[in-house]
């Protein structure tokens, strides 16, 4: 843990994304209006995309923006609007909110104290400055001895999910 070298651009970006991500996440779970929650969600997910850029995974960052913020965010907005008529606008949380908070906090503390600090507290720089490129990811996803099978299964899953979503959400005749 060394903050003594001044504020590098990278550290600045990290801080910014942290504010976006965690702030957005808090917004998601606390805002009463679900349209706002959806906006907060997009903001949070954008912060994650920023992390991906910092972590030299530009492809995933762009996919994050396109799929999460673009597609899923919009999907949430539509779902909120379609079901808004009956939305209870008075109460955010259910009766167990304090228990849930306790549990979430315990989980966080447990993760920090039990796992992150003891196992990774002293690890500093990455093992290498060189990283793979998007080309490598593409090759890995379609090459026969790596991920082509999961890749195809994933596409099948998406198709099945699409059909399933249509069937479930369709008006019954």
């Amino acid at each position, binding site marked *: *843990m060394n903050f003594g070298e001044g504020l590098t651009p990278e550290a600045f970006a*990290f801080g910014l994304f*942290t504010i976006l*991500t*965690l702030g957005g*996440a808090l917004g*998601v*779970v606390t805002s009463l209006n*679900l349209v706002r*929650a*959806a906006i907060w*969600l997009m903001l*949070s997910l954008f912060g*994650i995309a920023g*992390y*991906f850029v910092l*972590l030299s*995974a530009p492809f*995933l960052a762009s996919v*994050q923006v396109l*799929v999460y913020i673009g*597609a*899923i965010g919009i*999907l*949430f907005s*539509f*779902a*909120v609007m379609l*079901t808004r008529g*009956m939305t*209870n606008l008075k*109460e*955010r*949380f*259910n009766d167990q909110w304090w*228990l*849930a*908070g306790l*549990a*979430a906090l315990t*989980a966080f503390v447990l*993760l920090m104290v039990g796992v*992150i600090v003891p196992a*990774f507290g002293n*690890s500093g*720089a*990455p*093992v*290498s400055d060189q990283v*793979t490129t998007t080309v490598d*990811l593409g090759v*890995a996803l379609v090459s026969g001895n*790596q991920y082509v099978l999961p890749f195809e299964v*994933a596409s099948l899953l998406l198709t*099945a*999910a699409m059909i*399933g*979503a249509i069937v*479930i*959400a369709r008006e019954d005749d």
Partner: protein
Amino acid sequence: MVPLWMYLTVAAALFSIGMYGVLARRNAVAVLMGIELMLNAVNLNLIAFWRYLTPFNMSGQAFAAFVLVVAAAEVAVGLAIIIAVYRNRQSVEVEDVDMLKG
């Protein structure tokens, strides 16, 4: 560079916040949003570990991509279910869906 543990801390925090949303929100759509936050926390972990520990092995990125795919499918089906439930029970409150009550 920013040390690894900071990413992990952010991810843990994000995970906990998402979990809180899942456990405490009344609205089913908000619950689903909480799940999305948790999935993103996992993705952040995957990418951070990949970058810091095994940058020449594509499994980190590949897994993150698959998590994304699964998340997309899950949201599509989840929202479809919410809409179906809404149509049948005129409610998207999680507490109203309690047919498993003993």
